[in-house]
């Protein structure tokens, strides 16, 4: 089981009820730095990198396994099992919101709450449903990734190839956040933006909070509302924070909203 913790570069801070923080597409566990610090006093905060991101073990990347979000949900469950986590508050950003939904649908006994930050069950518009994107948009993102990985891939190569004769570069990259292997980033973009998890929402019995940002291009309000409506008994909180990453751009507001939800859930008003 120990290799699961290495594979996903699991980091634990604080003690108490477990709070599992799952980063979204395009970044790694560093995006939780403010939120993790705010909860480490009261919770056992568990951080990890999805395989292919951050300091995860790239060698464990398996195209077949990670061709669907189930592969990632499986990793989340394995981390819970490896650490014997119960009564987990799962906080998932972006695509990890749906990864949490899949994990909670499969093993509801592990989870106390789902906190979904900027969730979308389907990014592509579909017959009355507004996800915010057309199929073609995904291809444009992939092109964009190509352009921006040109320089990166040259810099990443020694790290990926395990070549240690450029220590300065390795050091620089070790200090950089949100790095990703270009090929894996493309595959993750595909599975993220082409997934359709709308039907999975009804399978969830875990209480949930939907945190919706303002002016979020990736997960527009229609998408967040849809998740809220399909998750039975979920709450919906609209943040003033703009963009798709309130955990970075407005950590105070994000932390306050999560704390308010968890406090009220603890003393339910019948």
């Amino acid at each position, binding site marked *: 089981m120990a290799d699961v913790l290495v594979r996903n570069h699991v980091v634990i801070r604080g003690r108490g009820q477990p709070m599992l923080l799952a980063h*979204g*597409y*395009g*970044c790694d566990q*560093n*995006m939780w*730095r403010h939120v993790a610090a705010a909860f480490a006093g009261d919770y056992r905060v568990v951080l990890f990198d999805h395989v292919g991101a951050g300091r995860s073990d790239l060698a464990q990347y398996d195209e077949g396994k990670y061709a669907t979000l189930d592969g990632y949900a499986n990793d989340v469950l394995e981390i819970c099992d490896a650490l014997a986590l119960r009564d987990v508050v799962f906080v998932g950003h*972006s695509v990890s919101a749906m990864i949490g939904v899949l994990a909670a649908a499969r093993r509801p006994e592990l989870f106390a709450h789902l906190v979904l930050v900027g969730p979308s069950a389907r990014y592509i518009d579909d017959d009355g449903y507004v996800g915010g*994107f057309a199929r073609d*948009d995904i*291809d*444009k*993102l*992939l*092109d*964009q*990734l*190509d*352009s*921006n990985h*040109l*320089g990166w891939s040259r810099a990443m190569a020694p790290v990926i190839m395990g070549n240690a004769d450029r220590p300065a570069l390795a050091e620089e990259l070790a200090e*950089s*956040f*949100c790095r990703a292997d270009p090929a894996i980033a493309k595959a993750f973009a595909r599975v993220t*933006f082409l997934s359709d998890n709308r039907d999975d929402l009804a399978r969830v019995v875990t209480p949930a909070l939907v945190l919706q940002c303002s*002016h*979020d*291009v*990736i997960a527009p309000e229609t998408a967040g509302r849809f998740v809220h409506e399909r998750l039975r008994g979920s709450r919906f909180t609209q943040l003033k924070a*703009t*963009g*798709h*990453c309130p955990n*970075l*751009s407005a950590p105070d507001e994000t932390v306050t909203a999560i704390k308010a939800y968890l406090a009220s859930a603890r003393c339910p008003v019948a």
Partner: protein
Amino acid sequence: MQLEAYAALEDPYEDAPIGYCTTDHAGLITRINRTLLEWTGYGADEVIGRRRFADFLAIGGKMFLETHLAPALHLHGHVYEVALDLVRKDGAAIATLVNAVQRRDDLGHDLFNRITVFKATERRRYEQELLLARRESEQAAKDLARTIAELSRANEALARVNEELSQFTHAASHDLQAPLRGVSMYAELLAARYRGALDDTGRHYLAQLESGATRMRELVRDLLDLSQAGGAAMRRAPTPLDEVLAEVLQLLDADIRQAEALVASDPLPVVTADRRQLAQLLRNLLANALKYRHPERSPRIRISVRSVDDHWEFAVSDNGVGFAMEHAERIFEAFKRLHGSDIPGTGIGLALCRKVVAAHGGRIWAESTPGEGSIFRFMLPRDEAA
């Protein structure tokens, strides 16, 4: 004077060959220089306090900005040289490279972002070409791998067919031996007991029968040898070629005497090989040199050896009738003979030689001048240990 100084300070911002803009905490553009306005085709009043930087991007760029750039900018405080296409008011795209720096207050709250934009039309074209080249080379590598896989499958199939053929030849020639022995035996009995009772025609038939049976025995023996050369029957061991040559000369002694031939050899090395097969190789080459001797002179046969890289190169040269160089390849093919029935032969000897040499990791070839003689050369790997 003051006014001029102010203008001199202002111009480098407004008219720099670089686009500048500043966005506030909510992402709205609060300041933008003339250059960036010109590039994008908007007026300052349409942009300031109204548009976000993301509004200048096409959908792919927006997604990249939100999923990659924004987190990186928050975590590092800057991002450098990010490739983005800005969309002009008229819908045209401009290739740019974007840098951004985030300014924060003492508590770490971000205050504003400074964004600088460089035109990168040429660079982007190079990059697109690089990407295209990379994709093409990846495709070529895939095609190559597929071709190699197909070739290796074809090779395996060929090897299988070859093996089956070899087994068939072996089985057929082996099974032919028993009835052939019967034919020879009864021909001998017939000759021993009834030769006197036969007339000339009968004796002629009997002689034909005996010579046919002898020829067929040779053919079957050579076929068996050919089918066994190389393959599973190989027994490799250190083999002193001097000893092998002495044995072969012993076997050919009667022919050598009859032809009044002179055979000379360099001292020969020890090689790791199948002794029986190398004996067949030398016997066939020497037998050929004797068989195709010049009618007007007695055979002079010389065996020499030299070291070439990690191989031994052997040469068996004679002063026989030789052959035209256009046949230099053909003579190594089974059943291809340059001569008719005037010189007896099964057409297998040189095919066997080639198979033996190939099975030992070497090659064999021939050079000749008609009327003057031939040289048969073959290479064998030199034993590292020896």
